[in-house]
């Protein structure tokens, strides 16, 4: 039975279970909802949950395990002599699977009957041609071993499929019987369903945690590897960043951290005031119409690909700044030599981040109850005083969240940095000089031409880890600030 059908049947059973569960509950309450512990929906949902969830969970588990098991048992039957020199068992097996899949396809397309498919013999019929006809390309002609293994594979798969179908359907029915049996008017269906929902919520929350674990795991081993090759002290306190694939690189993180900080600060200095003022204006001053138009428009800024911002920085903003601060520029000073600089990238990144601050803050400000504003206005405060002293403090946690999001984005951005800020890793106070950031270097070291076991490549992971720990500190700080200054309304 095709998988789709099995899933549909289980789901259909779930729907039927819903109806029956609901009905039984109602009957047990003599048709009066009021005698039920929970709403009828909960009884129905309870039964469907018991029908669908275990069955589908088992099905998914089976589907993950089955190919592994079949693969292993078929692979065990392939004699070592049948594996061509230079090839591996794994490759032979992928050929086997391809042939097996091809035969399945041929059967479903009607090119072969299933008897023919299991009776094919290498050498006798041209399997490659038959499969090519149904659109399955093979790299070479099919050997006898491959073909028989493929047939064995098919046979096992079909038995296993049958077993799975039986098991899944059995579980669905068992679930139904169990849940249906428990259904009566005093059964606490809502609590059960809510527990299930709660479990779903917890699973969802743990995905975020698992991601963190995954990221840490994918960084930490290579980071350790890196520190075996390169002294940690030089990495953390070195002031020169000059990787070279030939070896003998200097990999001091300080210039990169400095660049990251500098650019992010400039970007936030642009985005936070503009974004916050825009949010305040939109939610407190602008009419619903103006707000309805301006807010989505500003949000488009977040969707323009960063490469556009990068080019905008390099080709428009950079030269503009050079015209002002460069030699022969409007100010008659010579502070800036190239179009790429911290300021160029920071300004443009700031523009990109405006909607991160403005849109989210706008929603949060809008959620502050009107009675707060009334209280302040009634005391003779102006709108701006009300906003500054009552509304913003009440909206603080959300606004900090929005700013953090913008800061995070600033730290993680690459394209604008690469094009706008230049690639020079240096420690300088001059905001008109080119610098670069940790993220930009992670990308270039990771995709770089350096040997993969060399410190030049592994440093990317150490950089990632450093950034991770640093931003973690930043977030802890933000949490503490919010806790301290949070003003909960009502």
């Amino acid at each position, binding site marked *: 039975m095709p998988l789709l059908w099995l899933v549909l049947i289980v789901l259909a059973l779930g729907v039927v279970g819903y109806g029956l569960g609901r009905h039984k509950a109602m009957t047990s309450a003599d048709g009066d909802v009021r005698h039920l512990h929970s709403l009828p929906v909960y009884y129905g949902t309870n039964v469907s949950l018991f029908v669908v969830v275990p069955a589908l969970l088992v099905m998914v588990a089976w589907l993950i395990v089955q190919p592994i098991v079949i693969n292993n048992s078929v692979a065990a039957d392939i004699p070592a002599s049948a594996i061509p020199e230079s090839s591996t068992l794994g490759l032979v097996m992928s050929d086997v699977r391809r042939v097996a899949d091809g035969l399945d396809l041929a059967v479903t397309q009607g090119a072969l009957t299933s008897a023919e498919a299991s009776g094919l013999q290498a050498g006798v019929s041209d399997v490659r041609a038959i499969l090519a006809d149904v659109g399955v390309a093979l790299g070479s002609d099919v050997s006898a071993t491959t073909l028989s293994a493929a047939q064995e594979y098919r046979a096992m798969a079909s038995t296993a499929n049958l077993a799975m179908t039986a098991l899944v359907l059995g579980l669905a029915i068992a679930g139904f019987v169990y849940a249906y049996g428990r259904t009566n008017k005093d059964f606490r269906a809502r609590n059960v369903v809510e527990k299930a929902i709660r479990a779903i919520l917890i699973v969802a929350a743990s995905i975020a945690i698992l991601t963190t674990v995954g990221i840490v795991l994918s960084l930490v081993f290579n980071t350790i590897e890196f520190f075996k090759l390169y002294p940690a002290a030089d990495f953390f306190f070195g002031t020169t960043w000059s990787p070279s694939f030939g070896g003998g690189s200097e990999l001091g993180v300080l210039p990169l951290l400095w660049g990251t900080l500098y650019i992010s600060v400039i970007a936030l200095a642009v985005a936070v005031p503009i974004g916050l003022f825009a949010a305040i204006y939109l939610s407190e001053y602008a009419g*619903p119409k103006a707000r309805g138009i301006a807010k989505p428009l500003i949000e488009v800024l977040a969707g323009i690909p960063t490469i556009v911002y990068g080019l905008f920085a390099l080709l428009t903003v950079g030269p503009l700044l050079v015209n002002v601060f460069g030699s022969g520029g409007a100010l008659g000073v010579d502070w800036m030599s190239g179009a790429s600089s911290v300021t160029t990238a920071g300004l443009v990144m700031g523009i990109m981040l405006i909607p991160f601050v403005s849109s989210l803050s706008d929603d949060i400000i809008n959620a502050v109850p*009107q*009675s*707060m*504003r*009334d*209280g*302040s*206005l*009634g*005391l*003779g*405060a*102006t709108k701006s*005083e009300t906003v500054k*002293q*009552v509304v913003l*403090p*009440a909206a603080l946690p959300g606004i900090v969240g929005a700013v953090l999001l913008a800061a995070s984005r600033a730290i993680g951005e690459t394209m604008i940095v690469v094009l706008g800020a230049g690639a020079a890793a240096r420690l300088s106070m001059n905001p008109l000089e080119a610098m670069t950031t940790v993220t930009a270097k992670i990308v270039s070291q990771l995709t770089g031409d350096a040997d993969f076991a060399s410190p030049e490549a592994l440093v990317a992971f150490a950089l990632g880890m450093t950034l991770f720990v640093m931003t973690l500190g930043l977030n802890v700080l933000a949490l503490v600030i919010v806790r301290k200054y949070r*003003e*909960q*309304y*009502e």
Partner: protein
Amino acid sequence: MYDNPNLERNVAQQDTKISARNVQVFYGDTHAIKDVNIEIPARTVTAFIGPSGCGKSTFLRCLNRMNDTIDICRVEGDINLDGENIYDKRVDPVQLRAKVGMVFQKPNPFPKSIYDNIAYGPRIHGLAKNKADLDEIVEKALRRGAIWNEVKDRLHAPGTGLSGGQQQRLCIARAVATEPEVLLMDEPCSALDPIATSQVEELIDELRDQYSVVIVTHSMQQAARVSQKTAFFHLGNLVEFGDTGQIFTNPQDSRTESYITGRIG
């Protein structure tokens, strides 16, 4: 029938503080206030009474233009404060509201400390020269709001952690702290026990020396006790307006009479 010490009190007839002419208020299509004309005298306590939903709060909010904050609300007609139309284009509602303070029907303390709740008004109006001055203003306001004793040890606890009646008194204290010329109070004692109520009533009486007070109340006894003038609203109309004594003892309109007696009779 009423325990009203003020009935015979000499109500000095003074100049009009606020006068409203042909005031109409609409919420969208709902006509909430219908053609109200009233003259609220200075240095007097005026009570607005009437059944729930008759438009008392709505009209009160017109007097300091708090209705401006409700999008769908539209006000027509003239309202003059000291002879100046407060709906005039040149009038700055901020300045107006500094003069005409308000205590809202639902207590709405700011999510700040008790101290900051009170200090907020004086700060924005620059009423305090220094910290000590501000402390004094805060203490005085809290005392006037009859809540000083309860909160003096927790001035820096959040105002939202107070009980319902405490919040109400906090809001009264907050409004008084800015020393407005007119104080609009929308059911200021609704959540207060009798003792607190009488303290607030004393405050109102005290305020009358210098300011005008308009108080919305559903307690006829309270209206009789504290006010010199009473206005009776019904279904958006100002049915009757006159000296409190006269309204309660000798109402001209049958609706007023039935409302007043409705409870008692």
